[in-house]
Structure formats: structure tokens, C-alpha cells
């Protein structure tokens, strides 16, 4: 997992959890407080409803006392016996005028449920069938689809029902308490302050009318024949509060995500990208490219790390340069590959060079001048060697030793060594020309070349080693060099055998060398 991902999660997860907890707590509080309020409201509304309806019922009872009396009994008797409705109608009209107005509903039936008189808000409504005559104790009822408070007067010959429409009362209750009221009569809505509500939507608990949630409580009074009487509180403020809490939560989480994105972007540009650059650069350095430089600005720790990295690579680069100067790159590579001292036998061509008359030639010279001169010369000569595929193995004061075919095998190492020798002499001649031009004295060198088997490997102490060649053939090359006249390149028979097709030579008198009892055949290389 990337660092910036970790930071992102470290910000998003705890802050989101915090916001989520806050939202849950808020929702719980909203539920507790608002729902409780709604229930209180419903409970109070219900009490008010019962109180109001009971009061109205009492008024109705008080006003309608005469309807129980002898006159109505006799008038109903007459109406039922004779079929003449004049008297009962007169009685009703008279009584209604006394109480200040006719009720919205009245009905007179005989004992066989034949309707004799009727008044209803629904003029054409058919009277309810006999079996739907109401329980006399239950004053809250419905006629022709309207809610009524009704009183029944049972007389000997018939029954008179007088009903007061309570639609207005219900509407007032709705206004006063800001609740919805619905009255249902055996599945049929006879009143609903919510026109879209139907009993099928439910009458208890959460009820959805359209997209609005209501809290419904069925609460028919004891004297109600209607089932149910429902009180509903509009829960949309609660839902709004809930939505707000959720939006707040969503907003909080969004902000935390944004912050996290911002921070992780900062981290990314400020830390991750530079670190990745550094990692890439470090890989390059590991692969040996010391020229790599990272470009990380800023004065912060990362910027300083970048600078330090550059300093480090710079340091490494310098060290590598020194290594390349002191060791040849191939040898350095050999060391890098393996530091174990495991020698191997190899056929190589060894080149020795030595300046003739060095001691006498440098006599009286400033040592610094000598050093400069040597450096100039060695630079030229080692270039010639390297150009021909050889490796300067070591500088030996006024001479050097070079090898062809170690540590890596070189195709045609003998020929390449001979050519290097020739080139060295050529460069040295030009160098001498320049010295003459500057009024300086000349130096000449002899070069000896031999080809043969030698032990190649790292030699030295555990903590300080060098790569070298050891063997008689090496010594022979050195001895041959000693025999070479200034400007001369001498090669042995082994070398000659390998280059005779390419190089012109002049065979010289065999020479005797130190450590060998027999004379050695030598050839002078001629261009």
C-alpha cells in the first residue's frame, strides 16, 4: 500500500467514523425527541377530540330532550298508525326552531325499519339497510358517508335519529392541533383531512401518503361506532431533520475525503513523488550510473534529502572516477562482481613499457615538473592501450604494465597488444616533438611484449587487494622490455607466432635473460 493511500485512509476512516457516529446520535435524538413530541401531540389531540365531541354530544343530548318526550311518542304513533306525517313533521320543525336550526340529518323509521321521514346532506342517498342501524350507545357514527354525532330516540312505534354533522368540528381540530384526522366506517372513509389517505395505507404507526410520512394512532372514543378513528401527525419535519442530519453527515464525509485527497496529494507531490524519484535514482546508482542527479527543490526534509542524495551520488561518482583511474574499469567490474580471491589460469599478452634514461633525463628537474611530465606521458600511453582493448594493470614509476586478455578474454589479444605497443611509440614520438618545440628534453621508451599463460586474480590482503598477473611469462615480458632499445618494440616467439601474418618484424639475435638458462628468440616490430 502506498504511503499516500495510508495517509488517505488514516484521514478518511476516523473522520468518517466520527461523522457517522455523530449522525447516528443525531438521528437517535431526532427520533426520540420528535417522535415523542408527535406522540404527545397526538395524545393531546385525541383528548381534545374526545373532549370536544363529548361536549357536543352533551349539548345535543340537552337540546334534544324533547325528542324523547310524549309529544314525539304520540306524533310518531300517529305517523306510523295513520301514515299521516303532518304532525311529526310539525313537531320536528317546531323543535328545531326552538333549538335554533335543523340538524343536518334526521330519520324516522317504524319498527319494521320502513323510513317515514328523512333529511340528509346527501339528498338522494338511500337509507342504510336495517341491519346497519347503529348501536344507540355509539353516538359517533356515519350516515350516507358523512360523520355524525347522532342520538337515537326509541319510541313505541318508531325510532327517531337526529344527527349533527361534525365535519366542521373535525376541520377546526385539525387546524388547532395541526394534525390530520380520518374517520372510517367499516372500510369506507367518511372523513379525512388528508384527501389522498385511504384505510389501505394503514391506520397505525408509520403511514405514507404520497411521499410524506405520518405517524398514525387509531383512537376511537368509547362512544364511536366508526373504526378506526385515526389521528395522524405529519412527520415531514422529522424527516427533514433526518435528511439534514444525513446531508450533514454526507457533507462531513465528503469534506473529510476532500481533505484526505488534498493531504494525500500534498504528500504525493511533497513526499511520494520525490521518494519515488530517489528510489529510481538509487536504482540507477546501484546500476553504476553515478551521473544521475535528482531534482527535488524545497528547503524541507525531502528537499534536503534530495540534496544529500545528490551529494552522495557526487561523492560516489568521484570515488568511481578515482577507482576508474586507479583501477581500469574492467578490473573494477571484476572486483564488483566478486571480491573472492579465486585465481584463474589464462592465456594473455603482457606489455611492459619503460622509459630509457629516466634517471639521467630527470636529473635537475623539479619533482613537480617530473610528476607533470609523467602524468602527461602516462595519460597518452594508457589511452593508446585502452584504445586497442588492453588494460593498464599498474604504473611502475617510469614504466607501466598492461594486459590484453584479462580479466576478460580478448579476441586477438596478441595482435592488439602489438598494435598498442606501436601506437605508444608513435604517440611518444609526437609528444617528444611537442617537448622539443617547447625547448624541453626528450624521453624514449622500450616496450616488451610476451604472450603466454599466467595466473590472473586478485592478490593482496583481505582488506586491500589488487588484480594482477603472475607467472614466468609475465616476468619474461618484463625482461624483454629491459632488452628493448629506445623507441623499440620487442616481442617474443610466442607473440610472434600469433601476429606474424599481420605484422612485419625483424628477427634479432636471441637474448639471454635473467632467470632463464637458454637464449630467447626476440623480434623487433616494424610498423
Amino acid at each position: 500500500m502506498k504511503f499516500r493511500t495510508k495517509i488517505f485512509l488514516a484521514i478518511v476512516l476516523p473522520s468518517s467514523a466520527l461523522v457517522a457516529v455523530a449522525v447516528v446520535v443525531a438521528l437517535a435524538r431526532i427520533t426520540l425527541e420528535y417522535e415523542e413530541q408527535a406522540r404527545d401531540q397526538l395524545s393531546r389531540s385525541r383528548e381534545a377530540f374526545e373532549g370536544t365531541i363529548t361536549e357536543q354530544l352533551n349539548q345535543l343530548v340537552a337540546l334534544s330532550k324533547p325528542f324523547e318526550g310524549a309529544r314525539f311518542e304520540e306524533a310518531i304513533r300517529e305517523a306510523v298508525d295513520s301514515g299521516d306525517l303532518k304532525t311529526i313533521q310539525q313537531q320536528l320543525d317546531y323543535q328545531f326552531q326552538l333549538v335554533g336550526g335543523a340538524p343536518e340529518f334526521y330519520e324516522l323509521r317504524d319498527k319494521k325499519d320502513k323510513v317515514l321521514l328523512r333529511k340528509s346532506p346527501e339528498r338522494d342517498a338511500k337509507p342504510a339497510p336495517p341491519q346497519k342501524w347503529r348501536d344507540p350507545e355509539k353516538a359517533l357514527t356515519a350516515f350516507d358517508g358523512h360523520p355524525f354525532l347522532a342520538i337515537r330516540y326509541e319510541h313505541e312505534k318508531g325510532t327517531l335519529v337526529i344527527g349533527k354533522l361534525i365535519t366542521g368540528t373535525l376541520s377546526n381540530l385539525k387546524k388547532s392541533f395541526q394534525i390530520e384526522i380520518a374517520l372510517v366506517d367499516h372500510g369506507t372513509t367518511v372523513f379525512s383531512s388528508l384527501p389522498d389517505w385511504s384505510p389501505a395505507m394503514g391506520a397505525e404507526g408509520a403511514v405514507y401518503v404520497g411521499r410524506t410520512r405520518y405517524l398514525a394512532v387509531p383512537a376511537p372514543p368509547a362512544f364511536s361506532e366508526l373504526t378506526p378513528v385515526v389521528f395522524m401527525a405529519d412527520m415531514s419535519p422529522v424527516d427533514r431533520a433526518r435528511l439534514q442530519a444525513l446531508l450533514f453527515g454526507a457533507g462531513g464525509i465528503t469534506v473529510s475525503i476532500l481533505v484526505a485527497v488534498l493531504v494525500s496529494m500534498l504528500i504525493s507531490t511533497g513526499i511520494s513523488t520525490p521518494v519515488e524519484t530517489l528510489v529510481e535514482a538509487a536504482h540507477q546508482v546501484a546500476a553504476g550510473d553515478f551521473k544521475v542527479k535528482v531534482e527535488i527543490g524545497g528547503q524541507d526534509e525531502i528537499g534536503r534529502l534530495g540534496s544529500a542524495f545528490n551529494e552522495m551520488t557526487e561523492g560516489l561518482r568521484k570515488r568511481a572516477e578515482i577507482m576508474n583511474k586507479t583501477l581500469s574499469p574492467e578490473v573494477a567490474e571484476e572486483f564488483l562482481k566478486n571480491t573472492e580471491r579465486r585465481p584463474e589460469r589464462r592465456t594473455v599478452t603482457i606489455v611492459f613499457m619503460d622509459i630509457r634514461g629516466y634517471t639521467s633525463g630527470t636529473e635537475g628537474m623539479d619533482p613537480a615538473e617530473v610528476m607533470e611530465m609523467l602524468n602527461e606521458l602516462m595519460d597518452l600511453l594508457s589511452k593508446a592501450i585502452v584504445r586497442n582493448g588492453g588494460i593498464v594493470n599498474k604504473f611502475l614509476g617510469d614504466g607501466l604494465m598492461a594486459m590484453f586478455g584479462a580479466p576478460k578474454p580478448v579476441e586477438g589479444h596478441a595482435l592488439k597488444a602489438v598494435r598498442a605497443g606501436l601506437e605508444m611509440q608513435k604517440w611518444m614520438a609526437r609528444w617528444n616533438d611537442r617537448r622539443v618545440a617547447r625547448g624541453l628534453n626528450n624521453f624514449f621508451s622500450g616496450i616488451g611484449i610476451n604472450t603466454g599463460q599466467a595466473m590472473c586474480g586478485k592478490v593482496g590482503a583481505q582488506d586491500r587487494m589488487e588484480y594482477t598477473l603472475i607467472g614466468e611469462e609475465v616476468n619474461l615480458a618484463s625482461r624483454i622490455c629491459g632488452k628493448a632499445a629506445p623507441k623499440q618494440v620487442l616481442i617474443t616467439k610466442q607473440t610472434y607466432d600469433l601476429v606474424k601474418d599481420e605484422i612485419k618484424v625483424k628477427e634479432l639475435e636471441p637474448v639471454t635473460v635473467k632467470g632463464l638458462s637458454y637464449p630467447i628468440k626476440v623480434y623487433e616490430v616494424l610498423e
Partner: protein
Amino acid sequence: MRLTLALLLLCSPQESATISGKVSAPEGAAQKKLRAKIKYAGPGVENHTAPDPSPAVVWLEKVPAVKMEPKTVEIRQEGLEIRPRVVAVPLGSTVKFPNQDDLFHNIFSYSKAKRFDLGRYPKGESKSETFDTKGQIDLRCEVHDFIRGYIHVFDHPYYAVAAEDGSYSIPKVPPGKYTLVAWKEFFEPVRQEVEVKADGAKVDVTMARFEDRPSDRKVGSACCDAR
């Protein structure tokens, strides 16, 4: 039959007999219920005194009308009751209704034989009504639901209000065959065929109960117009 009766009456005016007997009215549950229903309750109970007896009325049905001298009868409103409770008068009689209570009454009737409304009037005042149609008139008081009274108007003399023990006698009845009707508050009217001989007839009547037909229950309702 009427012709025969008329002939009988014409031919032998001195020949007459008496129908006598006893109306027994054993009360059942329905009667007790009705009685309970009209039991006095409400304000002014301390002024209430026991209602008058409610005797049976017995008469002959479908006899020819006989011109009779009208009477003047008094029915008092007293002790929150109508007294006497049951009255029988000849056609054309006048009934006075004095109020002797310290409160208003409002006697009225919606009976077919006589519709009237006396209105309310204080103690000491009286109003009267003349009854020109035969039949039964149920008296009610608008103010006091439980108050009941009955007037029976006849266009012939063959009727009697029974005594408290139910005994009655209808005198001066020409011998012949008749239908006797017995009425009593809280009961169904009873009709009974009688044959009156020269020495009269003895007819005991038992009132019918109607507890098995509660939907037809009546509190002294008008039952019979053939008087």
C-alpha cells in the same frame, strides 16, 4: 242482525237484561315492563302521589247508535297524575281539565277520535274539551312523560268501567247476540261473543297478554273504533 236488534228493541222496550262478570288481568313480564317504563322519575318527585287505579272498560261492539244526554266530567291534573285515569263518556260529553298541581302540565292528544292541545296553565285554572267522535282518546302530558289517561267515548249506553276488582255490569241490554270487548291498559283488547237472554248474561273475561309480541307492545293505544 241490526234489523233484528232494532226490532227487538222496538217491540219489547221493557225487556232488558244485565251483562255482568269480571275482567281478570294477570300481569306478565311485558306488563311489568310497561309499568316500569312509565314509572315516575325526574324533578318534583316529592309531589308525586300514587296513580289512580286503571280499571278495565267493557262494551258491546257494533250496536246501533243511541242518542244520549251528554255529560260533563272532570279529569284533574293532581299529584303529577291524571285522575281518574280511565273515563268513559257518552258522545258529545265535555271534559274539564283543572290543574291542581303547583306546576305546569300540558295535556294533549294526537288520537284520531280527538286531537287537542290544552297548552300549559297554572294551578287553579281549567280548560275543557268536548268529545264529538266515538273512540279512545289517549291523554298525555308534554311536560311529564309518564302521565297517562284514557277517555272512551261511546255512541250507545252499553258500556261499563269495571271496578277495581274487575267486576262490571252493563245494564238494560236487550236480549240477543253481541260481541263484548274488554279493554285494559297494558293489555291487548279482548273480543268475546255473548248471548244475552232475558235473565241477562254472565261473562268473565281474561285479558290477553302480549309479552310474546314485544314489537306490538302498546301502552293503552287506541284499539277499537267500533264502540
